[in-house]
């Protein structure tokens, strides 16, 4: 039953991938004939520079978010804080409903313009889903496993690392995966508060009604998001032990 579902979904995703490749190819051919493609490549230098900037924004905010969210999630699921976990989860959920632009605007009003407010805004945005998944992942570890661990003499410090985190790792990485992909997309808004990134081409392209410029920003952004998703997906596949990895 599971195998059947899996193979259906594998077939489906293969079909979708092929369709995508064919579509991109057809689009490329069409643009080539209309002269759009050559004009996109006029922006190559800008694109290379801005991709670098974009990646830096995503990487710094993403890494910071992971470094804060995962330990915070572990801390919030320890016994002394356990009874507040529900409250924190609801609070964080509330946080995720605040529109992205509002977060960026808020952080600009505190930190001024440029990279720092952008990174802070992206950090907050990425932190929340990772924190939620870390908490959910750790809470989904069956209590009898913790009891077995305690009964065998694992210390309070060993239990999170040997039992809780490995068993929650898949859910945590799933949170990181979506959070980073969203981060890549959202980082285009950085332009609005002077943070740079590929948004510069997109928004300028819109202003100037220059589709080639707009696409020169949008296509690399999309590819970057797909790449990040792919990389974290691979990490999820290879780093998580087979025993707790639903992918294999």
């Amino acid at each position, binding site marked *: 039953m599971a195998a059947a579902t899996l193979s259906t979904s594998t077939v489906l995703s293969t079909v979708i991938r092929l369709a995508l490749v064919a579509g991109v190819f057809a689009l490329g051919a069409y643009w080539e004939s209309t002269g759009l493609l050559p004009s996109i490549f006029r922006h190559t230098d800008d694109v290379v520079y801005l991709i670098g900037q974009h990646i830096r924004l995503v990487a710094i905010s993403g890494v910071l978010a992971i470094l804060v969210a995962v330990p915070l999630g572990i801390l919030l699921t320890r016994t002394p804080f356990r009874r507040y976990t529900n409250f924190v989860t609801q609070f964080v959920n509330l946080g995720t409903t605040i529109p992205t632009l509002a977060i960026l605007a808020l952080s600009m009003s505190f930190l001024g313009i440029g990279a720092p407010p952008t990174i802070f805004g992206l950090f907050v945005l990425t932190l929340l889903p990772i924190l939620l998944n870390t908490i959910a992942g750790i809470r989904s570890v069956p209590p*009898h496993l913790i009891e*077995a661990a305690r*009964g065998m*003499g*694992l210390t309070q410090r060993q239990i999170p690392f040997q*039992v809780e985190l490995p068993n929650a790792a898949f859910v945590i990485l799933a949170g990181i995966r979506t959070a980073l992909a969203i981060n890549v997309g959202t980082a285009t808004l950085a332009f609005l508060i002077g943070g740079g990134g590929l948004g510069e081409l997109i928004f300028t392209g819109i202003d100037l009604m220059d589709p080639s410029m707009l696409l020169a920003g949008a296509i690399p952004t999309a590819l970057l998001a797909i790449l990040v998703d792919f990389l974290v997906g691979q990490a999820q596949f290879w780093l998580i*032990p087979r025993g707790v990895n639903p992918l294999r």
Partner: protein
Amino acid sequence: MITLDHITKTFGQTTAVDAVSMEVPAGSVCVLLGPSGCGKTTTMKMINRLIAPTSGKIIVDGKDNAAVDEVTLRRSIGYVIQQIGLFPNKTVEDNIAIVPDMLGWDRKRSRIRAAELLEMVNLDPEIFLKRYPKELSGGQAQRVGVVRALAADPPVLLMDEPFGAIDPINREVIQDEFMKLQARLKKTIVFVSHDIDEAVKMADRIAIFREGRLIQYSSPDDLLAHPSNSFVADFVGTDRTLKRLRLIKVEDVMVEQPCRARADDTLETAAAMMEEAGHISIVMVGPLGRARGYVTLDGARCKRGTVGEHHDKLRGVVNVDEDLRAAVSMMFTHDITWLACVDDDGFYKGYITQRGITHALGATYRDS
């Protein structure tokens, strides 16, 4: 040895365990038995301090266990829970080696130990060491759970309904395996169960609990023969005498070294032997003493010739190592009142009769 000295545990208003005192001798299996919620698990968890007693003292191997560091204490006590609790993120090998790893054993030594332990429960290390728990059947996981508790060779083992989650047939198999292991290892075991049959099978001593109090603490046979009150009697069941059949071995009840006939004896000789012994039949043995057949007194009197020519096939033969349940079952199956008893090689060791069995079961009632 484990000693509980007036152990009490209260959770708010409920008294889960109420002034329980008992002693588990070294190397023996003590089964805590009773209805759901009577405090068995709570009592057990106080031994490895997963639960702190409200009052009272527990002494394990001469040391007050409140004085020992709790992590050190737990690493010296094997622990098996009903849900087995194998860690899904670790291979079978790593699961088994958890406590040795924490104790700082050399990695090579702990992995060899894991392989050894798997073999003890008939799981091929080649196949199972590298598997993950999700790749095991229920029975296999249960076996791994048990040997994991044995990994660092702790003198004491706590087992909370360790065989509860498997089907009855597999459960019997694992129980038998475990008893063989225990006969070799001689651990001091506290075993929680709510199954009287399991308790009777495994226990050296059974502790019956009711609402947190220890009602009776005695050997299985004593418990079945002399339940201390109607609660215990009801709990062990109206067929308690039949349950005792399991506890007595054929060799303890059979009549040993009875007279026997050989194939070349005449029927007259056989009849004379039976008359002298007051028997109505006699077993014929082969040249080396294996049970081959039998002749009855009536048959021997009214025919002529040798025993070899006139013997009948034995309808029931029972191994001396079997329990009385097997013997009685065979008697009922073949509608006979006696059985020849043989050892593993088929040598005739004695015979067992229905009267002998009722007598043996009745002895303890008459004593009291």
